[in-house]
């Protein structure tokens, strides 16, 4: 009872404060916590920390922003934490990789309904597939090589699903090796010749794979998974350089564009699961003024030339930006995925175990 009274009083006070506040003084002198659901030192941690450095300069009042890591629950814990903060009036940001698969298949442990949480903005992280050269002389040999081993993380991981789907669409005979703890672990196995093919983030390829294995001729790039917007158009990806998109790769080998049930699934996944990666949310029922300020400032960071230069230094290219409207539509799509998509993915994940 006492707690409820105190909580009500606090919310009422904060709401009054919000009404009275202007964009200029709303965040002045405040500390804003930004939660990331991955451990320190991970790719997501790096992306969020670098974004946040610039973000605080774009928020009127220039608050102090503190990044906190809350890994756990297979990445779900951070979203559950955000969900639990609804109606507390907390002005906090949750900026972390979204697992589209977890949303679509309604993964155990993810209590938060991301479709009901306000999105501030998001970034994409393109990914690509590469292979060892001792198993195939050139990319064109791929469909003819038997017994290849595809290395991936958990069977429900985005890279595992996209990697396997593309190999299945091509009709490659391969063995799925699931359960690596991250892209680095899979790549170590690639270097030790324990697995032959891997799907990984494009920046990981540029920073780790290219200098250590491509330049020495041990590994060749095969394709990147294209970015398709909500209108179904392929978004150009200059960062991919000479690497073909999967659709071009397929056509170069088979002479015709890919088709069929698996490709339809791939096409459905690309704008959704692959369309949003690092997403910044606030808890449900966050103050409208706080939301507006953070949405505007998020968009403003992505246009900041200093930030874009920093991003190029870290990732080798600029991460494509997803507006809050586009991102909300993507999250809605995944939360309300057609039943046949959900069933297909559940079975496909099961088959990957």
């Amino acid at each position: 009872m006492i707690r409820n009274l105190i909580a009500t009083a606090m919310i009422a006070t904060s709401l009054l404060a919000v009404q009275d506040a202007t964009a200029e003084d709303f965040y002045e002198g405040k500390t804003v916590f930004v939660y990331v659901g991955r451990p320190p030192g991970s790719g997501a941690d790096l992306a969020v920390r670098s974004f946040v450095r610039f973000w605080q300069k774009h928020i009127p009042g220039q608050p102090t922003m503190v990044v906190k890591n809350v890994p756990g629950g297979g990445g779900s814990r951070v979203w559950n934490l955000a969900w639990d903060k609804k109606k507390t009036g907390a002005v906090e940001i949750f900026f972390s990789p979204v697992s589209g698969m977890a949303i679509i298949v309604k993964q155990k442990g993810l209590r938060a309904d991301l479709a009901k949480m306000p999105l501030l903005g998001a970034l994409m992280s393109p990914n690509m597939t590469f292979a060892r050269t001792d198993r195939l002389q050139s990319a064109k040999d791929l469909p003819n090589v038997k017994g290849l081993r595809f290395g991936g993380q958990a069977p429900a991981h985005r890279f595992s699903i996209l990697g396997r789907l593309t190999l299945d669409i091509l009709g490659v005979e391969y063995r799925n090796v699931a359960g690596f703890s991250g892209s680095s672990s899979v790549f170590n196995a690639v270097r030790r010749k324990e697995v032959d093919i891997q799907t990984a983030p494009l920046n990981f390829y540029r920073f780790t794979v290219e200098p250590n294995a491509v330049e020495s001729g041990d590994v060749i790039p095969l394709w990147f998974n294209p970015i398709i917007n909500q209108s179904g158009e392929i978004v150009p990806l200059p960062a991919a350089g000479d690497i073909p998109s999967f659709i071009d790769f397929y056509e170069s080998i088979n002479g015709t564009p890919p088709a069929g049930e698996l490709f339809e699934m791939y096409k459905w996944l690309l704008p959704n699961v692959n369309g949003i990666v690092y997403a910044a949310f606030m808890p449900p029922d966050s103050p409208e003024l706080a939301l507006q300020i953070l949405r505007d400032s998020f968009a403003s960071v992505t246009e900041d030339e200093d930030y874009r230069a920093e991003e190029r230094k870290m990732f080798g290219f600029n991460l494509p930006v997803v507006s809050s409207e586009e991102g909300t539509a993507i999250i809605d799509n995944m939360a309300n995925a057609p039943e046949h998509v959900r069933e297909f993915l559940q079975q496909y994940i099961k088959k990957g175990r």
Partner: protein
Amino acid sequence: MIDGMLAGLMLVFSWPTIGYLFLGVIIGMWVGAVPGLGGVVGLVLLLPFTYSMEPAPAFALLMGLYAVTSTSDTISAILLGIPGSVASQATILDGYPLAKKGQAARAFGAAYTVSAFGGVFGALLMAASLPIILPIIFAFGLPEFLMLGLLGLTMVGVLSGGSIVKGLIVGAFGLLLTTIGYAEATGVPRFYLNTEYLLDGIPIIPIALGLFGIPELLEMAVKNTSISRVDAADTRDGGMMRGVKDVIVHRWLTLRSALIGAYVGILPGLGGSIVDWIAYGHAVQSAKDKSQFGKGDIRGVIAPETANNASRAGALIPTLAFGIPGSLGAAILLSALVIKGLQPGPDMLTVNLDLTFSMIWDIAIANVVAAGLLMLLSRQISKVAFLPAHSVVPGVMVVLLMGAWVATSSMGDWWTCLAMGVLGYAMKQGGWPRPPLILALVLGTLIETNYQLTMQIYDGLSWMVQRPIVVCIEIAIVVTIVLAARGITRPKSMRAKPHEGHGIAESFMSLGLSAAMLALFIWAYVAAQAFEDPATSEFPVVVLLTAIPLTLLAFAQDARLSVRGIGVAGGFAAAWTAASEQWGLRLSLTFFGYVLGIVAMAYTVGQLFALPIFVAIYARRWGRFSWAASFTYAAVCFLIVWGLYVKIMKLHLYPSLLFGG
């Protein structure tokens, strides 16, 4: 190469780089010394400050911290028997008994001397070994990592005291704990009791702090003794310089341990976890007189402390040169590298060779500076061992519980710490070794992952006989077990003595533990049968099928000893009374009542008030301090929690019923 080394040295000694290196060392000494914090927390705290710095000073700051946490974590390992980090586990076995004998300063003297030597030697060895490191790393595939994990676990199970059977059961229990939460291979959650806290597994810090810290604090409180069981006046031969001389006497052991540390340390993900145990095992196996190991043999401090510092440079090389981070700390350093726009890989050995060498020099210099500073401080630090128990217990309890809170900042951390405190107390009273549990937790996921991946990649079990390194490790495992079973390797002091000193209290507690473990293992086995995928259930089932027969054996032994003890005591009632007295049951339960009280108060008024209230009540009621002293002590604790954990570390405390978040 020489040019690169000299250029790197020049970088380190340029201003402000050297200043940042010293600053990193000071902060590293501090975060290493506070249980529960450690290198990762320190690196995360410092990382934002390096964004706008030039690479050399930025890495000097980070490397200064990274290099020395395994030096200062020795303080809590030796003084309190609490591992400040995974790297200081083996040090407890002989370091803590030395403190109890009033020879903490001697242990510190030896530990800091070898830490400095290990750090410098490891750094120089890695610099000289750069051309051959890549082949070494890639000679270790998934099967080799799997077998190395098993070797580490076997060594701990066998060497950490008590009976071999119980050591192996505890190891199996630890492995079972690592199967809680999402399985890496399938993403299916296991044994999580529909609790979100358990979905990603139990964090190791609250377990280690509860398992080792709470039983030691309880013993001090109940017996009202200082850490040292002898007076300061009786310890004139146990000073710091004696520890330095010990190192000179055991110089070859120091050198061999440094070699072990440096080369095992380069194995990504595994090296840092087992290196101290492998060095400790080597010290025991190579010693002619093994009788004092486990009772306070200085060689049991020298070997692991040399190895864990020597491993730091080894762990850095794969990160810099090949982009392979072997630990969370290394991953943070890698991210710092990326933030600076530097590519891990061949560039770090060519165009940026001076920077690579500057980091290696950072490690070497940081180790020497930290060891020197800690040497200067160790005379004062070791005086803590002679302070009255009641002045130490409440303060350390506050640091211990806040250290546990750092793990995930949820009440699950405190419940885990408390549960592990009860378990640790029972294990201590029942003569069960505790270190295998921690190493199993460190290695469990790694062993399971490597097992699953090995079975997917290599057909059948042919890899067990076809890969030379695997075969060598298998031989080492078998030899370790056989020699230990025959009592050749395992020191006499660690062997179970069923007939001497195996009191009724120990038998009863051990019997209770065997029964509880057996029930848990059977329940887990039944639960594992319900998992749909074989890949989800396979590893826990293998662990349980090994553990259940061993536990039955331990249960039978304990039952036999208990029955015999009841006979000697003249009946169950007399035996129970004797056992209760020996356990200090009433006071022990009171102590746990205090800890439960802290948790209950935290739910009500929050940690910021619960912890100082506990300190005041404990100091006044149990410690018989004056009101003024009790309140002053509580106020200091309040300032520590508020200043260190809330303001500096920005930790969120529990949103209490009365005051909210």
